[in-house]
């Protein structure tokens, strides 16, 4: 079994980076040292009527710190967004399988949609460190996030698409419009299911290996409740353990 850490951790920073989107830094050395890209953490709320922890992808991890970027979508994430530096937060981390970088990968594409973008950052950083070139494709409804952070890695092109946006530097439409999958050894993706589904269809045509990070309503986060399943072939598979990263062929059979 993979090692995970229960921590009553200190919040180092928690601030809004875009409307309804927050970045939180949590001091958690054990978890940070063991985290890999594509994994997630469980954040425990101290809110009596909301019993379940919130699964949130890892945006970045350093020696002593895990950073998450999350969207306020309900009462739980609202409460999270109101927490202050130096407050204590309980987390369980790192969880899930994470992205797998095949040894022979030379050129990768990272495809993110909306709040699915942050988990790709730690992967992009890891690829840059491993000197594997990676083009970044990010799609949003109206407002991009993190584009500068990805550009700063300087490890490939950064493309932006906006569904309803008016940015001159962005493609107007879906991010999947821009991807020539045959140019890549490996594609990594995280985002809304329709985007992942479209991407999987696209990359299947060029037989490009594609990993997708999936979401599901989750309870335990560690495999015991068998709640967070998705259909993979004829079986139901747990997002928290067998995932959140799956081979696109498994979850979007063509």
């Amino acid at each position, binding site marked *: 079994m993979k090692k995970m850490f*229960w921590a009553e951790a200190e919040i180092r920073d928690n601030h809004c980076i875009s409307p309804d989107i927050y970045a939180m830094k949590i001091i958690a050395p054990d978890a940070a040292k063991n985290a890999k890209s594509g994994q997630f953490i469980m954040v*425990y709320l101290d809110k009596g009527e909301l019993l*379940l922890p919130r699964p949130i992808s890892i945006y970045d991890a350093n020696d002593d710190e895990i950073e998450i970027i999350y969207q306020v979508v309900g009462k739980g994430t609202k409460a999270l967004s109101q927490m202050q530096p130096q407050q204590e937060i309980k987390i369980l981390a790192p969880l899930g399988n994470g992205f797998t970088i095949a040894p022979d990968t030379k050129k990768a594409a990272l495809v993110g949609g909306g709040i699915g973008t942050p988990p790709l950052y730690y992967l992009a950083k890891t690829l840059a460190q491993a000197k594997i070139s990676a083009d970044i494709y990010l799609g949003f409804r109206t407002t991009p996030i993190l584009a500068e952070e990805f550009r700063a890695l300087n490890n490939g092109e950064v493309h932006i698409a906006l569904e309803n946006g008016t940015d001159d530097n962005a493609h107007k439409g879906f991010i999947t419009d821009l991807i020539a999958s045959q140019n890549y050894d490996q594609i990594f993706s995280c985002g809304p299911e329709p985007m992942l589904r479209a991407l999987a269809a696209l990359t299947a045509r060029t037989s490009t290996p594609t990993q997708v990070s999936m979401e599901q309503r989750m309870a335990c986060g560690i495999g015991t*409740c068998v*709640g967070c*399943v998705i259909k993979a072939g004829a079986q139901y598979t747990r997002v928290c353990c067998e995932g959140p990263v799956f081979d696109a062929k498994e979850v979007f059979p063509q």
Partner: protein
Amino acid sequence: MIDTTVSIAGITLKSPIVTASGTFGSGQEYAQFNDLSRLGAITVKGVSHEPWLGNPPPRIAETHGGILNAVGLQNPGAKAFIEKDLPFLRTLDTKVIVNLCGRTVEDYVAVARDFEGVEGVHFFELNISCPNVKAGGMAMGTDPKMAEEVTRAVKRATATPLIVKLSPNVTDITLIAKAAEAGGADALCLINTLLGMKIDIHKKKPILGNKIGGLSGPAIKPVAVRMVYQVSKVTTLPIIGTGGAATWEDAIEFIMAGATAVSVGTANFTNPRVVTDILDGLVAYMQNQKIKNLSQIKGIIE
């Protein structure tokens, strides 16, 4: 010197704190945060004779003070359980309760027989109350005759002490309790989840893939305590109380209502160390109150 042991069907549990089926896996995951040998027993996830696919997702919905689940007892079957999960459980210095599920009387008998000659299983828990299984499951737990029949059949098929887990979705739970007792149950566990539903008003459909699921968590604790109290007055069988227990105070409440042991379920999700916290609180309470043995307060409510 306090003594936290309790006895069920002649078997001594080190403490009255037990984990609930379907919330604790086979214990391995939680062993990283808890000393499992302090537990009275671990109840493992429901096991059927053949592998079960389970229900379509989503399977989890959060409600006010509770959660709905409609897992549908997805499991790889008894054979896989015995091969993959039981070896770890055998290494633990605690008792193991295997939750048995089925759709027919024959199913239940078959899965009980799958464990013939298998070591490391101290109790069976007959799950005739899962609301997420179409046939069998809860249907058996809401009809006294069927409850008695399936209990008797499994009891005949195995020498392993048998706990029957009762459904709260009945008009009079004492009738089902008495039926299980008549069928030969060695103990009762109550309550399973309450049938519930949550609608995503934006998508205009139920959140759960199965539409309806089972409600658990602190929200239902008053119903659970009431039923434990009622059942304890009509049977001499030991009761494992369960339903929303999340603190040591909750555990004491169940015991005062008449439970011999207390099973912790949903609370494991809210706090993976909750069983340790409950045990610490329980021991401190016993010391402060100079309670040597929990039998001093068990069923103290008249």
